[in-house]
């Protein structure tokens, strides 16, 4: 009956007219700036110039290791061979390696800051439901011709839009700052992938977006979790606290329990999809498909609990 776009506009208005949102944006910009300044002052720009000599030296090391040590595991051997091929390709085509003091290197190093984006989004998502209850505004919000699930959905979408906004800010600012500090010349450098024994040039932008996407899986799950806690307990402190605690300790807990087979059913064992791309899975036998299914199941369960609590329970606040 009611246009959900209007509900989302309302949530966005509430989000962006509160000071804390802009403080979050400022903190994000500040962190990228500090990262840039530290990288600039600690790296020696001289090293960049004779990168060809450096990587050919590196290749010699790899080669000697491959020939001297016969008992190397296959994964390590493959890794060396891949690196050698890519380095040779770099020298041949004059494509310098991605160091943190290059444009793309800096952008990629800033991906770690996505953890801060999740942190801020958790705070927003948790408080967007719980604060309506604690301030009593929920009573005026729910006596409108809009189904409760639509109001909940609009809050969820608005939190996701906030996250996307922060990610756009993070990417663009790290790109601009990287260019300013380390020159934009590197912007056109391709990403070198190793496919079926051959080096292939790929778009660096897409590679970075892929990395962003993988880093966001964890964020989306934690935001959904925070949202659930916030609708169930109607308390933003609890939702924020619990989600942040799990975000920072989840990986450690799973690591400690990794000797048990059932650990693979825990959410945090599955949210890091990079373990299948360049690393070893936490529990042997886990696959990317298994993790994706687990993530979808958790995602559906969290959202169902949120929906059920928000649309069925009495409002007595």
């Amino acid at each position, binding site marked *: 009956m009611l246009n959900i776009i209007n509900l989302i506009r309302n949530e966005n208005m*509430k989000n962006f007219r509160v000071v804390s949102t802009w403080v979050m944006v400022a903190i994000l910009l500040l962190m990228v700036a500090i990262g840039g300044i530290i990288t600039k002052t600690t790296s020696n720009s001289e090293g960049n110039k004779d990168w060809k000599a450096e990587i050919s030296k590196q290749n010699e090391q790899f080669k000697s290791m491959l020939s001297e040590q016969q008992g190397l595991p296959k994964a390590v051997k493959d890794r060396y061979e891949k690196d050698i091929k890519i380095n040779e390709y770099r020298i041949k085509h004059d494509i310098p390696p991605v160091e943190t003091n290059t444009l793309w290197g800096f952008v990629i190093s800033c991906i770690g800051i996505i953890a801060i984006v999740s942190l801020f989004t958790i705070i927003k998502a948790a408080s967007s439901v719980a604060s309506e209850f604690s*301030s009593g505004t929920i009573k*005026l919000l729910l006596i409108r011709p809009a189904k409760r699930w639509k109001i909940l959905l609009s809050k969820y979408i608005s939190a996701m839009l906030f996250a996307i906004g922060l990610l756009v800010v993070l990417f663009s600012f790290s790109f601009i700052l990287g260019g300013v500090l380390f020159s934009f010349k590197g912007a056109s450098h391709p990403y070198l992938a190793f496919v079926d024994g051959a080096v292939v040039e790929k778009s660096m932008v897409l590679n970075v977006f892929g990395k962003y996407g993988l880093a966001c899986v964890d964020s989306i799950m934690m935001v959904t979790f925070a949202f659930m806690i916030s609708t169930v307990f109607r308390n933003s402190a609890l939702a924020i606290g619990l989600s942040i605690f799990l975000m920072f300790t989840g990986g450690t807990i799973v690591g400690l329990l990794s000797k048990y087979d059932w650990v693979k059913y825990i959410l945090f064992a599955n949210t890091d999809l990079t373990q299948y791309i360049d690393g070893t899975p936490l529990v042997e036998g886990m696959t990317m498909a298994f993790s994706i299914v687990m993530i979808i199941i958790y995602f559906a369960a969290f959202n169902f609990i949120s929906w059920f609590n928000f649309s069925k329970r009495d409002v007595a606040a």
Partner: protein
Amino acid sequence: MTGKPIVQIKNIKKNIGKKAIIKDVTFDVFAGEVFGFLGPNGAGKTTTIRMMLGLMSITEGEIFINGYSIKKDFESAIACVGGIVENPEMYKYLSGYHNLLHYSRMYKGIKKERIEEVIKLVGLEKRIHDKVKTYSLGMRQRLGLAQALLHSPSLLVLDEPTNGLDPAGIRELRELLRKLAQEENIAVFVSSHLLSEMELMCDRIGIIQNGQLLNIQKVDEFLAEEKTTVSATFTVEPVSKAKACIGSIIKSKTSAVKNNQIEVEMEWEQIPEVVAKFIQEGIKVYGVQTATKTLEDKFLEATGGSEIA
């Protein structure tokens, strides 16, 4: 009442856990009337309002608004209701205007002009672009009223609307509500414990206690009825003689003696008779004061004091 019923509450019950909060309440509110809902703390006023507005589920029974069931057809039913539950809690970090904009987006087809119109109606033109956190409680009440009237509802539900208003504000609100009921034929449902206020504001009053509706009465009817019995206070000397004197005329159960005053509940018609007797007996009469039984007395009588159920 001449209007059609806007609200039909039919045998509603509400249990929270095992406790019955509302036990079988039935009443109608008609278009064009101001209905007062009175009750001591914990009687179930707010619970009833929450059920009317769909904030709480109804354990048993039905509530219809404009013929739409709030249970089964929530969106159609609530679209014709404007309300404030308890305090008018608005988004404090937004301006008054943005609060109204926020709520206007939740209805179909509310234009900017309507927002301006409502702002003018509640008299907030000067401060509407200030943040709500800078508002006084009275201004928040006005803003609360503005958001409730935005979509021109046929039912206005106000929970303790005079809370925090100054005497001038209360009077203004009273006039506004009367005007809305009379001119726009809105049904106004007001809950309060400010009894004297209700007397002036409402056409009918329902008294609720322990989750049960005790009675519903027209305000003017019972004011007329109560006029016959008054509480009279005589300032006389000597008091003891006067007391005996009164006792000889009326068999009053309630007489209180304080300093040189005697308070007696008696028929209005008997006052001159008592005064004549006093003078005849040589008792000095310094003053006679009468007070009709107010709604407050009636209310306390009906609910048996302030005990929380």
